C-alpha cells in the first residue's frame, strides 16, 4: 500500500517555507559542479529551474522538443501574472491571494503549497524586472496592474497581451546566460521517452534526438520534469501542436502517481471552432473581460447583426447571474454559463456555439485609444484569424480546453512518488485545485522553477548517493523498451494517420469528459477509447524511417500516450462523485445549476497508480486539511 506523505513542515502556515529553508541540507560551492541535473522541458518552469540551478554551479542539461528553448508554449500566455504586492493600494495581501486561490480552486488544493505560492509571488515580479522584462508602466514609471477573473483586486502585472512571451524570454535569456557561462547545456529537438530507475530511484532519462533519430542515454543526480500540461488529449485545445503528456505519462508508467487527472480547465474566452479541418483553438486573454461584456440575444430566433440588437434584448448572462463578479466570474463558472446559454439555443455564430464579447461600451467610455493600448495585439490577433474587426463588431468566443490542473502527484518538495524525480509547473498536480484562476499559471511555474525546486533538488542531492553511469544495465533495459515501442508504432503498417485517431479521441473526451460529465457518458467513453486504441494499434500509418527526422512518428508516439491518459481521466472523473471547479458531474448540482461539492467524501487528492496495460489503475488518497481557511460553498453572486 502506497502511503502519500506530503511532507508539509510543522508550524504556522506563514512560517512553513522558511522553516523548511532553514533546515534543508546544502551542497558546498566546490561540490556543485560534480552534481548533474536533468531538466525536461524549457518553458517557464523548466528554463527558470535550469537557469537557477546552473547559476548555483550545478551542471544542468535542459531538453526540449522544439528547435529552441524559447518556443515552449509558456510563450503564448497572454494576460498577466499575479503577485500580492498591493501596488494598487487595495489592501491586497499574501493571505488574500491565498484565499482567492484556495477558493478559486474550489478547495481542492493543499493549503501549505498555496500559501507558499502567494508568498513567493512578490519575488517573481522583482526577478523578472531585474532580467529586463518590460512590464507595462504607469505614467510615473511604476509598475501597472490590472484585474483578472475571480478576484476583487488588481494584482495582475502584464506586458501588453504578451506577458507569457516576455517572462519566457526573460527565463530563456537567463538560461542562455548560463549556457554561455558553461554551467548549462541545451539539447533542442530532443524528446524524453522514458525515465531510468535504478533500485526505484530516478537516475537519468532516455531521449530521442529528433533530427537523427538516435536514442540517447543521459544520467543525472536528479531529474526534473517541466514538460507542461496535457489538454491536447482533447485534440482541439489552446495548447501548442507539440504539447504532450509523454514525459509525465512514461514516468507514471514507471511508478509516479498521477493526481486528479480529470481536473482540466476549459477556458471561457477562445475563438470558436469553425470547421473540421481546424488543428487548434486560439485563446483570447481573460484580461479582455475587464472591459468586454459577455452577452447573447435573449431570443433564440434573433437574426439581426449584434449592433442592431437593442439593450433590452441582450442577455448579459454573467452580469445577471453573478452580479458581484459579473464578467470577471472565474473560468469554470464563466465557461459553464456559456455552455448553458448555448444549450438553450441562444448561442451565436455559424455553429450556434458562441457568445459575444462586446467592447462597445468600453470604447464609448474610455475611448478607442485606451482600449487599443491595453488590448491592441489581442484585437489584431482576433481580426487576423477571423477577418472581423472587434473595434466595430463584438468578438465571438466559446470555451476551449486550456489547462490541466491534474498532473504528477508531488509532495511539498515537488518530488513525485519516485525518489529523485521532481515535477514542476503544469506537469505537476499543482496548487490550483479543481480550477485555476487567471494569471496564476505563470506565477506557479516561476515560483516552482526559480524559488522552490532549486532548493528542494539541492536538498535531495545531499543524500542521493553516488551517480549511476549510463553503462548501467538499467539504462540498457530502458533504452530497449523505448526502441521496442518505436518499432511497434512503425510496424503497425496501416493506413490511418495519427491525427485521425487523435481527433476521434478528442471528440470522445470533449463530449464525455469535458465541460460536463456523467457516469453513463464516462462509462461509454471508456469503451470508446479502448476501441480507438485497438484500431490505433492495428491500422496506424507512420513514415518508415526511424533514424531521421520523422514527424509522423513523433506525433504517433504522443497519441499513443494520450489514448492511455484519456482512459485514466475517465476513471478519475467517475470516481469523483461530486462537482467541483472544472469537474462538473451533472448528477451533482445545486437547484440553480451550480457545482455541488461533497467535502465529506472528496476533500482529498486522488492519486492513481499504474497497473500495467491490462490492469485497472488503483486510486490512493491524500486527505486535504483546512486549518487556515474555512470550507465554504463558492459564491460569486
Amino acid at each position, binding site marked *: 500500500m502506497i502511503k502519500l506523505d506530503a511532507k508539509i513542515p510543522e508550524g504556522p502556515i506563514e512560517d512553513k517555507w522558511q522553516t523548511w529553508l532553514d533546515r534543508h541540507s546544502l551542497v558546498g560551492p566546490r561540490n556543485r559542479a560534480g552534481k548533474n541535473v536533468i531538466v525536461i522541458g524549457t518553458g517557464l518552469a523548466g528554463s527558470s529551474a535550469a537557469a537557477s540551478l546552473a547559476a548555483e554551479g550545478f551542471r544542468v542539461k535542459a531538453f526540449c522538443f522544439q528547435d529552441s528553448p*524559447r*518556443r515552449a508554449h509558456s510563450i503564448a500566455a497572454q494576460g498577466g501574472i499575479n503577485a500580492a504586492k498591493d501596488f494598487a493600494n487595495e489592501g491586497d495581501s499574501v493571505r488574500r491571494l491565498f484565499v482567492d486561490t484556495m477558493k478559486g480552486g474550489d478547495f481542492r488544493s493543499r493549503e501549505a503549497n498555496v500559501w507558499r505560492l502567494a508568498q513567493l509571488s512578490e519575488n517573481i515580479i522583482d526577478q523578472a524586472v531585474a532580467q529586463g522584462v518590460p512590464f507595462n508602466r504607469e505614467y510615473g514609471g511604476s509598475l501597472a496592474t490590472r484585474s483578472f477573473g475571480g478576484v476583487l483586486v488588481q494584482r495582475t502585472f502584464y506586458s501588453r497581451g504578451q506577458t507569457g512571451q516576455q517572462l519566457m524570454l526573460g527565463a530563456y*535569456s537567463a538560461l*542562455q546566460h548560463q549556457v554561455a557561462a558553461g554551467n548549462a547545456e541545451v539539447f533542442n529537438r530532443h524528446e524524453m521517452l522514458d525515465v531510468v530507475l535504478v533500485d526505484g530511484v530516478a537516475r537519468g532519462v532516455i531521449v530521442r534526438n529528433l533530427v537523427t533519430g538516435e536514442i540517447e542515454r543521459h544520467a543525472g543526480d536528479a531529474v526534473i520534469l517541466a514538460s507542461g500540461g496535457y489538454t491536447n488529449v482533447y485534440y482541439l485545445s489552446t495548447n501548442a501542436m507539440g504539447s504532450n503528456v509523454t514525459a509525465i505519462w512514461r514516468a507514471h508508467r514507471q511508478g509516479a502517481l498521477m493526481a486528479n487527472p480529470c481536473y482540466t480547465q476549459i477556458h471561457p474566452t477562445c475563438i470558436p471552432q469553425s470547421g473540421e479541418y481546424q488543428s*487548434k483553438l486560439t485563446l483570447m486573454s481573460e484580461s479582455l473581460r475587464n472591459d468586454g461584456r459577455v452577452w447573447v440575444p435573449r431570443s433564440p430566433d434573433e437574426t439581426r447583426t449584434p449592433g442592431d440588437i437593442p439593450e433590452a434584448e441582450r442577455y448579459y448572462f454573467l452580469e445577471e447571474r453573478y452580479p458581484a463578479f459579473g464578467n470577471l466570474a472565474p473560468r469554470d463558472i464563466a465557461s459553464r454559463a456559456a455552455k448553458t446559454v448555448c444549450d438553450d439555443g441562444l448561442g451565436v455564430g455559424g455553429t450556434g456555439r458562441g457568445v459575444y464579447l462586446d467592447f462597445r461600451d468600453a470604447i464609448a467610455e474610455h475611448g478607442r485609444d485606451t482600449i487599443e493600448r491595453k488590448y491592441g495585439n489581442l484585437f489584431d490577433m482576433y481580426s487576423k484569424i477571423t477577418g472581423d474587426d472587434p473595434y466595430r463588431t463584438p468578438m465571438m468566443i466559446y470555451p476551449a480546453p486550456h489547462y490541466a490542473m491534474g498532473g504528477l502527484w508531488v509532495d511539498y518538495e515537488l518530488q513525485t512518488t519516485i525518489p529523485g524525480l521532481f515535477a514542476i509547473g503544469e506537469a505537476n498536480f499543482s496548487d490550483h485545485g479543481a480550477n485555476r484562476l487567471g494569471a496564476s499559471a505563470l506565477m506557479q511555474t516561476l515560483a516552482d522553477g526559480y524559488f522552490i525546486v532549486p532548493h528542494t533538488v539541492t536538498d535531495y542531492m545531499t543524500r542521493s548517493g553516488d551517480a549511476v553511469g549510463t553503462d548501467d544495465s538499467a539504462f540498457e533495459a530502458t533504452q530497449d523498451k523505448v526502441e521496442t515501442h518505436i518499432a511497434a508504432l512503425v510496424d503497425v503498417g496501416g493506413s490511418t*494517420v495519427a491525427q485521425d485517431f487523435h481527433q476521434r479521441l478528442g471528440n470522445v473526451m470533449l463530449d464525455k469528459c469535458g465541460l460536463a460529465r456523467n457516469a453513463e457518458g464516462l462509462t461509454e467513453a471508456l469503451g470508446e477509447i479502448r476501441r480507438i486504441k485497438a484500431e490505433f494499434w492495428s491500422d496506424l500509418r507512420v513514415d518508415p524511417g526511424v533514424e531521421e527526422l520523422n514527424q509522423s512518428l513523433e506525433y504517433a508516439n504522443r497519441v499513443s500516450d494520450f489514448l492511455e491518459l484519456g482512459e485514466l481521466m475517465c476513471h478519475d472523473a467517475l470516481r469523483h462523485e461530486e462537482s467541483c471547479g472544472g469537474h462538473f458531474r451533472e448528477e451533482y448540482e445545486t437547484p440553480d445549476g451550480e457545482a455541488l461539492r461533497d467535502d465529506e467524501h472528496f476533500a482529498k487528492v486522488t492519486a492513481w497508480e499504474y497497473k500495467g496495460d491490462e490492469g485497472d489503475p488503483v486510486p490512493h488518497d491524500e486527505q486535504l486539511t483546512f486549518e487556515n481557511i474555512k470550507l465554504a460553498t463558492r459564491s460569486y453572486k
Partner: protein
Amino acid sequence: MNFKLVIWRQHGPDEEGSFETHEVAGIDPDASFLEMLDQLNARLGREKRPSIAFDSDCREGICGACSLVIDGTPHGPQQVTSCQTYMRDFVDGATIKVEPYRSNVLPVIRDLVVDRSALDRVIEAGGFISTTTGPQPNPNAMPIAPKVQEQAMDAAVCIGCGACVAACPNGSAVLFTGAKVTHLNLLPQGQPEREDRAFNMVNQMDEEGFGGCTNFGECSRACPQEISLDVIGMLNREYRKGAAAQRPKHRSEMIAQ
C-alpha cells in the same frame, strides 16, 4: 478551394533537394496554410507516401516555430507568420510555391525544416542581463517611463522566427540582433553591459556567417511582428560605442582598473 502546390522536398541536410507537385482539393477558405498542409499530409499517409516535414507549434503567431517561404516571401503574402496565413488570402486554383528558408546559416534539416540554432548562439553571446535568481531590488525603485517601456516592448516582441534573415538578400540577422539590443539597452537594467552586449552579439553574428546590412529593408517588411528598421540604427550606434570601448584606454585608466 483547390490549389496546386509546388513543394521543396529534401531528405536530409546533405542531400540534393527538388520540387514536387501536389494538388489539394476542397480546402476551406478559413483553413490556415498549415492546416491545408496537414490535410495533404493525412492524404499522403493514407497513400503510404512520405509526409512533408515542416515546423510549427503554437499556431497562433507567437512561438516563432513556423518558417515557410510561400511564393518567394518568408511566411507568405500577408506579413504574418505562416501559421496565421489563411487560404482565403489566395486565389482559388492558384499554383503556390512552398520552400524552406534559404540561408547557409539556417541549413535545411528536412523538406521545409531548417536549423536556427545560430540565433540561439547570438543570444548566448549577450542577449541577456547577467543577473541570477535571488533577492532583487524593489522594481518601483527604478521607474521606467511608459514611453521607454513601449519602445523596449516594440523591440522585445521579436519571436525569433528568422524570417528577417530569410528575406534579406545578404542573409543578415541585424533586425533580430538589433531588436534584442534595443530591448535591453533602452532599459535601465541593461546599462551595465550595454557596450559589451552589442559588440559581442555582432561579433557572434559575423562568426556564424550571417551577412552584413546594406539597408534593403526587406527584413522589416517580412517581419510578422513589424519590428522597425530603427532597431538596426540602434544596433549600429551601440556597436560603435561598444567597439570604441574595447580599445585600450589611456595608461592612467588602465592602471586604475
